[in-house]
């Protein structure tokens, strides 16, 4: 019964995707019509310069915003976990958590209006484009990183840091040599999460981007409104392959980590 439910659920999740992947190898120009095996849509994909440009821009923005989001999220998570009850703490917590629950369309509109207002007041940012998308995605990602960092910091054994401080380490040395390595997994997870969110975002980027800075999801969204192409199917196969490889790699690393860990002495 439980297995049946799980199997049906997985079928629902995977059926559209597997079908899409299968038809990526069809010769036919009409998507979802079988016209014999062919790799022509992968060749078309590789020759689509606008798509490749958009993908490259998306990757750069995702890497940049994940990095900024990790730095800012570390800052927020640190204050949330370590600064105790300070004046304005409830407001601080609400603001730090807001991007997690704000509808994308509200967040996109809000950030766009911020950039427009800043431009009117300060003349910066002079135009909207990759820079504004980078900032918008960082604002979204930092909230996710903050949650992960806060949870990790709250779970740390305070004696580790106290011991280092007792042995004469400066607060910065304690942070660099003890705290940072201990929370590194949550920073890495947060970076990955922020990277994924940025790479998949349509709505924020549509609001805050300008001409000449089209990210991959925005490009695909505009193409899909015009109609389906078999190229999209081919792209899905490529992305699924990359994600599968990444996951496989992660599993291998995790497994190796498990083997190398010496058995505990309990």
């Amino acid at each position: 019964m439980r297995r049946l439910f799980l199997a049906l659920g997985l079928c629902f999740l995977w059926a559209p995707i597997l079908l899409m992947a299968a038809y990526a190898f069809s010769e036919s120009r009409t998507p979802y019509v079988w016209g014999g095996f062919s790799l022509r849509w992968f060749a078309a994909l590789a020759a689509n310069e606008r798509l490749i440009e958009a993908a490259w821009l998306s990757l750069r923005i995702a890497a940049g915003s994940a990095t900024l989001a990790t730095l800012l999220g570390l800052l927020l998570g640190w204050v949330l976990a370590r600064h105790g009850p300070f004046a304005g703490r409830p407001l601080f917590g609400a603001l730090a958590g807001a991007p997690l629950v704000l509808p994308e369309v509200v967040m996109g509109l809000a950030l766009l209006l911020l950039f427009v207002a800043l431009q009117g007041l300060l003349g910066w940012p002079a135009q909207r484009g990759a820079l504004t998308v980078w900032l918008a995605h960082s604002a979204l990602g930092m909230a996710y990183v903050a949650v992960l960092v806060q949870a990790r910091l709250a779970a740390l054994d305070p004696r580790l840091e106290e011991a280092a401080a007792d042995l004469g380490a400066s607060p910065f040395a304690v942070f660099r040599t003890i705290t940072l390595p201990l929370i590194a997994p949550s920073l890495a997870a947060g970076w990955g999460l922020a990277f994924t969110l940025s790479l998949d975002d349509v709505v924020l980027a549509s609001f805050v981007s300008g001409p000449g800075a089209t990210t991959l999801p925005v490009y695909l969204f505009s193409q899909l409104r015009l109609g389906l192409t078999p190229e999209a199917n081919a792209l899905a196969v490529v992305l699924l392959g990359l994600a599968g490889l990444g996951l496989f790699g992660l599993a291998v690393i995790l497994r190796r980590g498990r083997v190398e860990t010496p058995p505990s002495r309990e």
Partner: protein
Amino acid sequence: MIRTAAWLALGLLVAAPLAIVLGMGFGSVAPGVPPVRWPIGAEGWQGSLEAWSLLFADGYYLDAFLRALRLAALTATLCLVIGFGMALGIASARPERQLLLLALVLLPFWTGFVLRLSAWVGLLRDSGWINTVLLSLGLIEAPLALLYTEGAMLAGMVHGYLPFAVLPLYATLARRDPALEEAAADLGASPFTVFRTVTLPLAAPAAAAAFLLVFIPAAGEVVIPELLGAPDSILIGRAIWAEFFQTRDWPAAAALATALLAVLLLPVALYQRLARR
């Protein structure tokens, strides 16, 4: 110093944008770039209630709200039911299998949001896969109108949001003590009674969190209704989008966004209470 920097980041990237949306709701449309007059100018207050009166002028936006909330509630309910079953299935699998099953739930995510929707378009449209198969089997004579319907939107929404429901439910169900259910069964409870009186109450907070985790973003969804819904089925997310991109009435978009936030305040507060436990 650290706290000041953190306040600065939050102020610039979260508080200021929200405050500006709130203010822009009282601005008015004006020719120029940007196409608005801010409510506060050189001569002081110059705001108007135009945008807000538009909101209440007729039932158009009220309908958009109700439609969006209904679809979000339907999506969240379906995600909760399906997600509960799946999470239970994963949590009762052999431990070494669980990670693989979780990966299978999450992997579709990485095909990308838009591409997943394109798969649904390919399945559901008149010349799509389902209609082609049904026609060639002779089960139907004319293609069924599947795309651009409420059902298509719902399928796309549940497909997109299901992992959000599975993860918190799995996290709770995997941690539960199997002794509780075994004890109930030993005492003669039927499998259904065990589920109803032990498993379900244990998972209730996680279930509520899962529901809200789907409901909140779903209520403001734009892209899925845009690609799978009927052109005339205006949901509030789409209405905000259209006011901004098509009508270029920024104050109206801002007033609608403010109203959406106000509507979502209660579910958000509820979710944050649940998440803190």
